[in-house]
C-alpha cells in the first residue's frame, strides 16, 4: 500500500499540470507593436480585447483592456481624460488611480488584464503601467434568503470577497482582526481569505487550517463546498464540520468566540470552523430577543432535532412492535387508519419520505409562481389521494409531515438534510428490532458524535467533553450577562469575555 502511495506521489510531481501559471518572465520589448502582438497572441485574439492609442509627452501610448471586465466610466475618468488633458509629465502621477503598478513583465500585464485592469504600453519604453479600472458589478447587500431572521441585522454576504470582508471588518472593528489571502485553484486562481481575530483564535488551529489550505492542489475551486471537502476532518461523517453561513452577524459572533472564517471570492457563503453541533442550532434571532424567548426557541429547535430524526422511527416501531404503549383512546383510531394499508410501515414511511423529498426538490428548482402549484398538487392532492387510495395511512402522513416541518426548523440547511438522512438508518433499525433498533442506531450516532472533531476540537462539546459552563448556550440561552466565558471548544486564547456589566445595580443599592 505504502509503495503504491509513493509511486502515485512521484507521478503527480512529475506530470506537468495543464493550467500552470506562466512563471517565466517575458520582457517588454521596446517595440510597441510587438508587445501588442504578443498580448493579442497570448489571449488568442479574443474579441473583447480593445485598444486605444493615446499621445503623452509627444509619445504614442497604447491602452489595452478587456472590454468585458472594465468599467468604461472609470477608464474614461481615471485614465483617458487625465492623459488627454495633461499631455506631458510623469505618467504614473497623471493617472488618477490609487492602484498603478509598473512592470517590465508582459506576462504580469496579461494577468492584470484578466483581473480587469488596463495596461498602458508606451512607445520605446520597457515599462508597462497596470491600472485597476475593474467594473464593480455587485448585487445589493440583501438579507440572505436561506437564513432569514425577524429582528436584527438584515445584511448578507454577496458574491464579492472585498465587500464581504468589508462587512466583517465593519462588524469587528478591531486591530486584531487578521485577514490572510490565499490563491487556490491553478486554472481559476480563486482568491480566498482566512479571517480570524489574532489574539483570540488558537494559533495551533490557525496553523492547522493554513497547512490544510496550502495543501490544496487542484485546477479549480468553484464554491466553498470544494474547500470544505478538502479541509474537513472526517469526509465520511454525515455531520457537517464547517458551518456555512451568509450572515455577517453570525460570522462576527463566531470570530469573537475565537473561531476562524474562510471567505471565497465569488460566493456569498462563508465557512466557519471549528464548530460544534449546537452552533448549527443557534440563530442570531436568539440573541436579538430577550433570553426567555431565545431559550424557548432553542428548546423548540432542539426538540425538532429529536422529532425529525426519531419520530418516524418511533412510530414504525410502535405500530409494528410495541403497540401496547399507545393510549387506549388513541389506539383504535390508529389501528383503523392502518387497517387497509397493504404495505409494511417501513415501506409506507420511506414512500412518503421520498414523495416529500421530491416535492421539496421540485419546488426549489422551479420559479416561485409554479412552485406554489407544486405545493398545492403535492400537499393537497397527493396527500389526500394517497390516503383515499389506502396506500399510506393517515397517521403516517401526520408523522412524515411533522418530521419534515421539524427538519426545516434547523437554521442551517445542510444540518437539516443531514438529520433527514439520519432518520433512514433509524427507521430501518426500528422496522427490524423495534425500540431496541432505535436505541442501537442512536448509540452508534452518539458514539460517532463523541468521536467527531472539527479542526481538532470536540464536535459534541459542551457535552463530550462535559463542560457545565458551556450548557448556558446550548439547549437554552441564558442571559448574556451570565455567559462570562467564551465556549471552551474553540480553545480561544482568552476565556473571559464579560466582566460585571450589571454592576450599576449593585452600585445603586450601595448608594441607597
Amino acid at each position, binding site marked *: 500500500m505504502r509503495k503504491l502511495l509513493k509511486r502515485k506521489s512521484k507521478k503527480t510531481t512529475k506530470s506537468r499540470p495543464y493550467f500552470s501559471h506562466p512563471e517565466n518572465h517575458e520582457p517588454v520589448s521596446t517595440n510597441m507593436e510587438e508587445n501588442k502582438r504578443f498580448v493579442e497572441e497570448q489571449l488568442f485574439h479574443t474579441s473583447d480585447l480593445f485598444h486605444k492609442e493615446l499621445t503623452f509627452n509627444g509619445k504614442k501610448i497604447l491602452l489595452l483592456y478587456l472590454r468585458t471586465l472594465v468599467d468604461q466610466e472609470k477608464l474614461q475618468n481615471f485614465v483617458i481624460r487625465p492623459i488627454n488633458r495633461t499631455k506631458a509629465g510623469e505618467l504614473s502621477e497623471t493617472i488618477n488611480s490609487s492602484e498603478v503598478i509598473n512592470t517590465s513583465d508582459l506576462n504580469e500585464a496579461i494577468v492584470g488584464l484578466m483581473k480587469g485592469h488596463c495596461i498602458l504600453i508606451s512607445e520605446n519604453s520597457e515599462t508597462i503601467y497596470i491600472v485597476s479600472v475593474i467594473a464593480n458589478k455587485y448585487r445589493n447587500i440583501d438579507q440572505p434568503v436561506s437564513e432569514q431572521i425577524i429582528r436584527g441585522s438584515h445584511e448578507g454576504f454577496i458574491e464579492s470577497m472585498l465587500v464581504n470582508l468589508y462587512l466583517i471588518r465593519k462588524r469587528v472593528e478591531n486591530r486584531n482582526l487578521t485577514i490572510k489571502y490565499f490563491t487556490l485553484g491553478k486554472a481559476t486562481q480563486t482568491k480566498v481569505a482566512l479571517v480570524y481575530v489574532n489574539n483570540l483564535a488558537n494559533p495551533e488551529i490557525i496553523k492547522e487550517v493554513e497547512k490544510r489550505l496550502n495543501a490544496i492542489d487542484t485546477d479549480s475551486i468553484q464554491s466553498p463546498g470544494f474547500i470544505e471537502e478538502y479541509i474537513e476532518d472526517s469526509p465520511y461523517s454525515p455531520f457537517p464540520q464547517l458551518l456555512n453561513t451568509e450572515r455577517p452577524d453570525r460570522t462576527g459572533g463566531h470570530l469573537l468566540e475565537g473561531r476562524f472564517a474562510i471567505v471565497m471570492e465569488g460566493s456569498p457563503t462563508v465557512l466557519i470552523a471549528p464548530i460544534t453541533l449546537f452552533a448549527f442550532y443557534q440563530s442570531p434571532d436568539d440573541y436579538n430577543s430577550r433570553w426567555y424567548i431565545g431559550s424557548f426557541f432553542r428548546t423548540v429547535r432542539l426538540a425538532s432535532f429529536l422529532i425529525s430524526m426519531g419520530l418516524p422511527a418511533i412510530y414504525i416501531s410502535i405500530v409494528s412492535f410495541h403497540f401496547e404503549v399507545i393510549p387506549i383512546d388513541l389506539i383504535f383510531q390508529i*389501528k383503523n387508519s*392502518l387497517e*387497509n394499508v397493504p404495505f*409494511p410501515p417501513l415501506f409506507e414511511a420511506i414512500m412518503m419520505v421520498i414523495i416529500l423529498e421530491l416535492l421539496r426538490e421540485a419546488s426549489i428548482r422551479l420559479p416561485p409562481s409554479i412552485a406554489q402549484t407544486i405545493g398545492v398538487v403535492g400537499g393537497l392532492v397527493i396527500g389526500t389521494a394517497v390516503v383515499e387510495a389506502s396506500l399510506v395511512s393517515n397517521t403516517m402522513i401526520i408523522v412524515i409531515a411533522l418530521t419534515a416541518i421539524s427538519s426545516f426548523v434547523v437554521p442551517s440547511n445542510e444540518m437539516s438534510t443531514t438529520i433527514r438522512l439520519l432518520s433512514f438508518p433509524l427507521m*430501518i433499525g426500528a422496522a*427490524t428490532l423495534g425500540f431496541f433498533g432505535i436505541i442501537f442506531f442512536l448509540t452508534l450516532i452518539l458514539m460517532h458524535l463523541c468521536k467527531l472533531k472539527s479542526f481538532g476540537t470536540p464536535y459534541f462539546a459542551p457535552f463530550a467533553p462535559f463542560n457545565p459552563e458551556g450548557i448556558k448556550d446550548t439547549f437554552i440561552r441564558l442571559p448574556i450577562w451570565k455567559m462570562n466565558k467564551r465556549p471552551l471548544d474553540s480553545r480561544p486564547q482568552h476565556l473571559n469575555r464579560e466582566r460585571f456589566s450589571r454592576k450599576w445595580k449593585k452600585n445603586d443599592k450601595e448608594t441607597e
Partner: protein
Amino acid sequence: MKKLMLIFLTISIVLLTGCWDQKLLKDARLVYGSAFDLAEDGRIHTTAAIRTLQRIGPSGGGKPVNELVTAEGDTVRETRMKMDEKVSGTFSAEKNRIFLLGEDLAKQDIYSVFDILYRTPESNLSASVGIVNGKASDILKMSKKGETLISEYTYELIESAVQHTTVPHENIQSICTLMFDPGRDFVLPLLDKRDNEVAVDGVGLIHGRKYTGHKLSNEQAGLFLLLDDNYGKTARFVKKVNKGQKPDINNYVTVNVMNSKRKLDVQAKGRNVKVSIGLQLNLTVNEYPLDTLAKKTTIKDLDKKLSEKFTNEAKEVVSKLQEANCDALGIGRNLIAFHNETWKQLDWEKDYPTITIIPKIHVNILGSGIIQ
C-alpha cells in the same frame, strides 16, 4: 477488505434477525374486556370483547363495535389459544382495560387466573378488576349499553365509582402484592347485572387469594373506604335524621364529605389486640329541606345525630369485615410493623375475627350550600 466484511456482517445481523418478533398493530385484534367464569368440571370459560371500528370512510374514524369470542380450556392460556384460532389476525390482550371474574371462579382462587398476566411483559397491569354476581360473561354478552360498548361502559362504571368513593382504586398490579400479604386483605368492586342494567353492587371482601362471598353495600363500602383513609374525589351519604316530618323527604339529610381525617390506633398487649379507629369527617350539607341550618343549635344537633349514625354503621362494617375474616383495613400490617412480638404469637387467620375494633366517627358540618 476486513472493514468491508465487518460492514457486511453488521448489516446482515440487523437485516436477517429483524422482523421475526414483529407484531403489527394492523393485524392485532384488540381485546377491551375479558370475563372469566368457572365452567363445569373446573375448567375455565373465557369471554373476550374485541373492539373494532366499523369503517365508514377511507380516512379513519368509524363506529365502534364489539365482537365476542368465547372459549373453554383447562388454563387461561389455553382459552386464549383457542380464541386466537377463532379470530382473524392476532388475539392481543395488551390493551385489555377490564377483567371480570365470575363469582364462583373468584371464590376458588383469584391469583391463578391472573398468573398469565403477571408473567407476560405486554399485559396491561393497570386494568381494572371486578367480581360479578353470577356469571361474568353475562355482562359482556350484553354487547352494548345504550350507545356505549359494554366493555367500555363497565370500565367507566368502575372508574366513576372510584371517584365517588364507592369502590377502591385497585388494578391488576396493585392487588398482586395484596394477595400475598399476610397482614392485609383487599376488596374488589362487585358488579351486578339486573335485567338490562349493569350496576356497582358494593364491594366483595377478599381474604388471601379468595373471594369470601361476603360483601358490603354501596353505602357501607363508602364508609369502609373512609375508615381505610381511601377517599376518592367525592363521597356522599344520605341519612335519616328526623322522624315524623311531613313530607317524608324532610326526614333526610344529604351530606358531602369535604375531607376526612383518620387515626388508626393499634394497641397490643400479649395476645390482646385493641384497635380504635378515629375518623373525623368534615361535611357540607347538600340537601336538607328542613333547613334552619343558620342556627348553631341545628348544626350541633345534626352533628350529634350524624356522628351517632355513622359510628353505628361503622361498627356494622367492621363486624362484617371480621365475619368475612377480611383484614382490608391492614391491621395485620400495622402489627407486623409496630407490634411484631404480638404478631408472632398470634395466628392471624384465627385471631383476626376475635380482636376488638372500635370505630368512632366524629362529624363536623362546615358548610350548608349557598343559601342561608
